[in-house]
Each structure stands twice: as C-alpha cells, then as structure tokens.
C-alpha cells in the first residue's frame, strides 16, 4: 500500500498544486525572515565594530599624550583629564565589553532586541548604573520581530494544519472514502501513511527552501554544519508534532470544518495560550521584587554611606593595609572615599540585587520544567539557545561583564590608593574582555517533544476508534 500511496500522493499533491504553493510560501516566509534576521545581526556587529574603532582612536590619542608626558612635553589638557591619572583611563577609556553575535544569531531574535550587546563599565560606575537594556522603541518590542523562529513556531503549524486537517474528512466528503473502505486496508494505517507522506514532502520542501535561502544569504555551511543540522532537526521534530496532532484529529473527528477548528484550537492552546499562562504562573509563584522599592533601598543605603564616607575609608584601609603602607604621602581625595563607599554599598545591596537574579533563575527553572506543556515554548527556547539570544545568554553576558567590571576596577584600585601614576607601559596590562557563550544544547528537550509525538500516535492506535467508528458515510 505504501508504494501506491507514495506514488499517488505525490501526483495528487503536484496536480493540486500543493507542493508548488507550499514551496513558494515557505520560500517567501523563510526569505523575508532570514533577511530580517541578517539585517539585525549586521546592525549589531556594525555597532560593536564602531565602538571598538572609536575606542581605538581614543586609545591612540591617549597613548600619544602619555608619550608626551613621559617625555616631559607639555600637553593642552586640563589637569584632571590627563591620562596619567588612573581614574581618567578607567573612566574615559573603558573597554568595549561586547557580546558578538553567533553566526546563527539571525535565526531567532530572542531577547536581542531587548538587551544591549556591549557595555563600557567604568572605574567609578557601579554595577547598577550599567544599563543592559537596549534603546528600542517599546512598540517594536511589543510587536516582536518577523524572524525565522516566528515563521517556524507560529506559521509553520498553520501551514501544516492547512496541509493536513482534512486528509480523511475530505475523502469522506468527496465520497472516495467508501471505495477506499471497501478495500482490504486499515483506514488508520492508510491515514497515517498519507500524513507521513505529506510530512515527508513538507520536510523536503523545508530543507530545500532553507538551503536555498541560507545559501543566498551566504551562510557558512561548512563552519556551521552541526548547527544547521540541529536547526533542521528541531524544525522537523516540531513539524512532526503537528502532523501527529493532525493525525489524531483526522482519526477522531469527522468533518473537515471540525478538524480545522480543533487543530486551530490546539494551535491557540500550544502557541498562544500556554506560554502566556506559564509566564503568568511563573510570575505569581516567583514574583519579582519591586525595582522601584529596590531603588528606595539603594538610595537610603547610599545616603547613609555618603554621610559616613570618612569612617568607611578608614575601615576600608584597615582591611587593605597594603594601600596604607605603600603610599607614604597618604593623600586621600574624593575618589578614595568614593571607591571605598562604592564597595560598601555594593556589598550591602548584594542581597537585594541577588534576589532579582534568584527570582529570575527560579522563574527560568519553572518555565523550563513546564516547557514541555508547550511545544512552541520548547522550540523557541531551542532556537534562542542555538542563536545565542536566549535569556540565559544575556544573563551570562551580564555576569561575565560584571565580573570584568570588577576586574577593571580592581586593576585601578592599587593605582589610585597608592597614588601611582598610570604609565604607557601599564597600558598593555589593562584587562581585556572576551565573551564566551555557554555551551548549551536543547537536544534533550527536543527529544522529549519527539517522544510526545510517539506517545500520541501510540494512543491513537491503542485507544482506537474501531474501524466501524471511523464513520464512512457522511
């Protein structure tokens, strides 16, 4: 039966122009989505490059000034902008702490429109003053982006539904089912074969159109072979899930209109409702503390700390006797007090700030645990991870860059407390930052989705409506 189904399904799909239509729609959707994604990634990379270039020019200028200073020449700069002051280097020549796009970043916008891709932590700046959110019109954030992930997660299921909602019902409605049912076959197997074949052709269409679109946008297949493989795998498993749902619906429900409604219902539940309900629940179970109230706390702490700056500095120096010994002049100015205070405030604020991080982690954990309830969510997460634009990636960037900010401060603190001048030779010792993506894969989750599909098919065969219950006549 398979051989004949294969041959004639192909003929029917071609003659009814399904394959042609599908390929064209997929090509247009993928093309537009990839183009959009590429645009965004290009802008992101260009911004980082521009910032690096800007830093380079400033660096060259500063090095020149340092050179002149060390050679005893006069420079036309106000006293406190002299690069020989460590605080000037630390504040005016901050490193570009950047998060370069993965080569696959165009796949999913993820959180990339919400968060910034480079920060410039300064010596005197505190962690909370680093703004990690990007300057984007909130309208854009609200509407979201037309990326490959959107096409696959939202639109592909709808294409599949349109492609498969009436495989059995249309036979019934057009009358051919009677003739089929009079053949020595099992209708359920026959439907399964039909859908499997449609799944096969759809998968082929997806692979071919994706290959073409990726090739057009000059995607480096050789370097990203495994990533492309994972992408295809995720898409195929997700598509399979929807075909399986279509199979169950085809077997259990009898008219094409009812099938369509049931499948659209599934789509609304899995794609629209369950993520937002999960989100709502995660917010209720692990509510974020109020940022405005955190501000209040921070203000009070800072106000108290400022009043006691001298005491704080003294105790700081008691803790760090090396700074007190090394500097014979013992000149203490604004920045010494400031840095000591900063440290204290940071320490005291830590529990408050950490509460946000832990709540966020709790929420993530919760969402992760229940994400199997929504295949759309599973696949979105997988795509985001693949593209390096997931919540976790940006969290990683935050923690890595904050660690660097500390490194940067720590580099200058000895200079400042020892009232030591910054020399040209110190320049090469400045800490450098390189972001590294956490190596995570979502294979297991996707495997879970695959398992779910298998379970559904098995259920349909186990709790079979008897052949007779597959209503033959209208």
């Amino acid at each position, binding site marked *: 039966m398979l051989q004949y189904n294969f041959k004639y399904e192909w003929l029917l799909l071609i003659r009814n122009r399904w394959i042609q239509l599908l390929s064209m729609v997929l090509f247009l959707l993928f093309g537009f989505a990839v183009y959009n994604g590429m645009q965004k990634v290009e802008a992101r990379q260009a911004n980082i490059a521009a910032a690096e270039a*800007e830093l380079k020019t400033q660096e060259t200028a500063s090095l020149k000034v340092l050179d002149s200073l060390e050679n005893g020449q006069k420079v036309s700069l106000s006293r406190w902008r002299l690069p020989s002051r460590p605080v000037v280097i630390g504040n005016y020549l901050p490193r570009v702490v950047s998060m370069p796009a993965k080569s696959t970043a165009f796949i999913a916008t993820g959180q990339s429109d919400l968060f910034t891709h480079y920060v410039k932590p300064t010596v005197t700046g505190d962690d909370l003053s680093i703004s990690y959110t990007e300057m984007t019109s909130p*309208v854009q954030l609200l509407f979201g982006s037309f990326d490959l992930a959107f096409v696959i997660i939202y639109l592909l299921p709808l294409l599949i539904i349109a492609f498969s909602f009436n495989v059995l019902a249309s036979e019934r409605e057009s009358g051919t089912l009677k003739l089929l049912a009079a053949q020595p076959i099992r209708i359920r197997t026959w439907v399964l074969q039909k859908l499997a074949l449609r799944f096969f052709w759809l998968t082929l269409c997806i692979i071919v159109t994706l290959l073409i679109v990726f090739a057009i946008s000059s995607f480096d297949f050789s370097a990203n072979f495994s990533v492309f493989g994972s992408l295809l795998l995720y898409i195929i498993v997700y598509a399979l899930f929807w075909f399986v749902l279509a199979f169950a619906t085809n077997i259990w429900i009898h008219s094409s209109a009812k099938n369509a409604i049931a499948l659209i219902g599934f789509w609304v539940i899995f794609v629209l409702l369950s993520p937002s309900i999960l989100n709502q629940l995660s917010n209720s179970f692990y509510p974020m503390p109020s*940022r405005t109230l955190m*501000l209040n706390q921070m203000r009070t702490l800072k106000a108290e700390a400022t*009043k006691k700056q001298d005491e704080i500095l003294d105790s700081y120096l008691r803790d760090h006797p090396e700074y007190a010994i090394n500097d014979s002049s013992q000149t203490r100015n604004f920045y010494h007090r400031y840095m000591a205070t900063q440290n204290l405030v940071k320490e005291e604020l830590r529990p408050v700030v950490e509460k946000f991080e832990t709540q*966020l982690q709790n929420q993530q954990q919760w969402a992760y645990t229940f994400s199997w309830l929504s295949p759309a969510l599973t696949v979105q997460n997988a795509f985001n991870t693949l593209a390096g634009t997931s*919540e976790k990636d940006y969290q990683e960037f935050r923690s890595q860059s904050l660690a660097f900010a500390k490194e940067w401060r720590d580099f200058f603190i000895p200079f400042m407390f020892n009232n030591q001048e910054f020399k040209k030779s110190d320049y090469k010792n400045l800490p450098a930052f390189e972001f590294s993506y956490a190596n995570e894969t979502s294979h297991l989750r996707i495997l879970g989705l695959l398992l779910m599909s298998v379970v559904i098919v098995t259920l349909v065969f186990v709790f079979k409506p008897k052949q007779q219950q597959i209503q033959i006549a209208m």
Partner: protein
Amino acid sequence: MIRHTFKKETKELWRDGRVRIAFIIVLLLTAIAVVISTNYYKNINEQYVEASANEREVWDNQGEKNPHSAAHYGTYAFKPKYPLSLIDQGVDKYAGTSIFLEAHKRNEAQFIAASDQTGLARFGDLTPDFILLFIIPLLLILIAYNSMTKERERGTLTLLNSQGAVGWKIVLGKWLAIFVPVCSIVFILFVITGFLLSSLPDFGVFSWSSLFTLFITYMIYYAIFINLVLIISATVKKSGIALVLSLSVWILVCLVLPKAASNLAEYKYPYPTRQEFAENIAKDKKLGLDGHNPWSAAAKKLEEETLKEYGVDSLSQLPFNYDGYRMQKGEEHEAEIYFKHYQYLKTQYSNQNSIYKTLAIISPYLPTRFMSMAIAKTDYNTHWDFSDAAENYRIATQKFLNEHFANETSYGDWGWKADADFWKQLPKFEYEPPSLVETLETNTTSVLMMFVWLLGSFTVLFFTTKSL
C-alpha cells in the same frame, strides 16, 4: 426579515455545541485575565505610592548640603500606572518605570519589566487586551465563517431566495446575530471593569468616558472583522475554504503584519544604540559649556559676557555667586543638547509611526492596537509625555537649586551648605497624563483609519451580498 434571520441565527448558534464551548472558554479566560490584571494593577500601584513617598522623604531629609551636591544626589520620578492599563497593558512592560533626575544629565527611564522576566514574557501575557485583540476575533471567525456558506451547502439559500428574501437584509440579520452576543460579553466585561476600578481606593484618572471610548474602539474592530468574515463567507462556495481564508486573514492582520511592520520600521528608521546615543551626547557636551569646567573656551566666553553685562571687572563683584550662575547656564546648555538628541529619537519614532499608520491600510489590527493603548494611557506617546514632563521637572529643579546657590552665597564659596529644611521647598513632581480629547487628537489618523475600514468593509459586504 432582519429580525427573523437574527432570531433564527441566534438559535442556530446557541444550539451549536462548539460555539457554546468557545463562548464559555473565552469567558473563563477573560475572567482569569481580569483577576490577574487587577491584582497586578493593585500591586504596582501600591509600590508606586510607597516608592514616591519614600523617595520624597529621602529628598526632604537629606540634611544640610550644598545645593549642587543635592542636584547630583538627584531624585526619582516614578511613572504612575493608569486604571485602564487593567484592560490594555500596552507597551508598559517594555518601557521603563522610573527616571533618575540629576544634575547635567537626562536619564532614560529605567527598569523595563520585560528585562526582569524570562523569555516567556515575549510570547505575550494573558491580559484582557490579548483576549480582546486576538482571541475574540478568532471567536468571531469561528461563529461566522460558515454563516453564508452553510446556506449554500444545505441548499437553503435557494429556498430563501424563492421566499423573496433580500440579500442585505438576511446578511444584516446574520451580522447582528454574530455581533450582539460578542458585544454583550465585552460590554459586561467593561462594565465590571468600570465598577471594579471605581471601587479601588485611589482610582486616580479613571473616567467612564475613556472606558466607553475604549469599548467603542473594540466594537468597531469587531464590526470590521465580522464584515471581513462575512464577505469571505459570501464569496466562496465551501465552508472549509471560508474557514481557512478567514483564518489566513486573521494571521496576516493580527500576527504577520505587525511584526513585519516593526521590522520595516526598525530597518528604515533605526534607533541609535544606548552607547551610541550616550556618546553622541558626550561629544556635543564636550564642545559646549560644562558647568564644572571654568577653563573651557565656552566658559571663558560666558565669563566675559557676564562681566560685561553687569559692568564689573571680577567675578567676585557680581551680585550673585558666579559659580551657581555658571552651573545654571551649563545646565541650560546641556538641557538643550539633550533636547536635540531626544528630539532626534522622537523624529525616528514618528517616522516609524508613519509606517505603522500606512500599514493600517492593510491591517485593521494596527489602528485598533494603537487606539486601545492610547486610550488606556499605556502607549509610547504617553511614555514620551511622561519622560518630557520628568525632564521639565528636572530642569526646573536644577534651576531652583542653582538659583538658591547663586543668590545665597558669594563667589568661590563651595563649602556653603543649604538648610536642612530648604529641600522641602522644592515643588513635588506632579504628572498629568494627556486627556482623552488630547489623546484622540494625537491619534486622529488611527481613528480615521478605523472608520475607513468600517465603512469600506460595510460597503463591500453590501455589494457582495446584494444578490445572493
């Protein structure tokens, strides 16, 4: 005839199990959404009241201090939450809630709620606006997709025609049978929300007229949707095709176009990155007057001019503390720079906005979305309005502080400290959001677009169903 068709259709719909279940599900979802939103709204409002009071207390009790130190110490402006945000959260989740007001610097609103949430938040929330904008149109499609095709498929259409039925009257009857139940549900929802809001202790700027306008907006949106679905149902032969086509329209109008529009807007009129923006401002600032830098060229020029204006030889002879005067001048200059750069952002946004407005021609979702947010005061314009008000307050505060410094002290007296009581004299930050009339005025294109859609779709429906 209209009345008869209406009665018959209502009966048919009510007897259809699917429609009944769908109605119940939508009602249930709406109820959950309203409960969640109410809690959220109450929570946020309490936090807002507490934070504002605390912040003012911190400001009032900062003790003896130099006014300029106080200026650097700064204060916070918190964005209030408006009652109708209970129905439409708009862009609130993506716009900051608090602005730090300090000397020399205009800050962006901080703490975007979405950045404190998991990626889940990007799928959208279960809020009333989600149901009103996405789910109810789906319900309408479910109810209406076969209202014409079923007559054709059952052959009852010829029967109706033989009874001398007039096409548009039948359609109107059907139209009402679809519209009335949905309209009543939404009406009840709005009335409940209205009473809920007016019973809350501090319901601030809640007005029934805004709520009513919001209701009308959604009714127009639904009318347009019903028209579209009925046009499809009247022109195609099979129910299945009508359903698929109607759903495609829904997907296109509600999902695809807004996203495509946002991509197009970003591509054509991009915002600078946060760092770029800051650097551009820093560059401009470097060229101009810096209140803290008496050695810059601009500062020297100001010095000369001031001396000339007052006809004195040295700064100490001026009738005020020149340090404070220079601070204020520098502040004014910097404020101008910020104004210029924020103006650029606004221009970019209004350009982006024009793209959304143009695309409203093919998506009735867009004008509805913008109208709904605007009326609920959760749109980007209101955010801008708030941000501008905060900036004006910041400028006024700096002026207040600098003038006190300039008038109370003499040149060079940086060690002077203002009284601990002085800070209380600073007026409080009060923000009044745009009124309903103003909102409607700024959104005339959206209003117009909705009416064009409404009338246009009615006309097309009338002509397609003139002879069935």
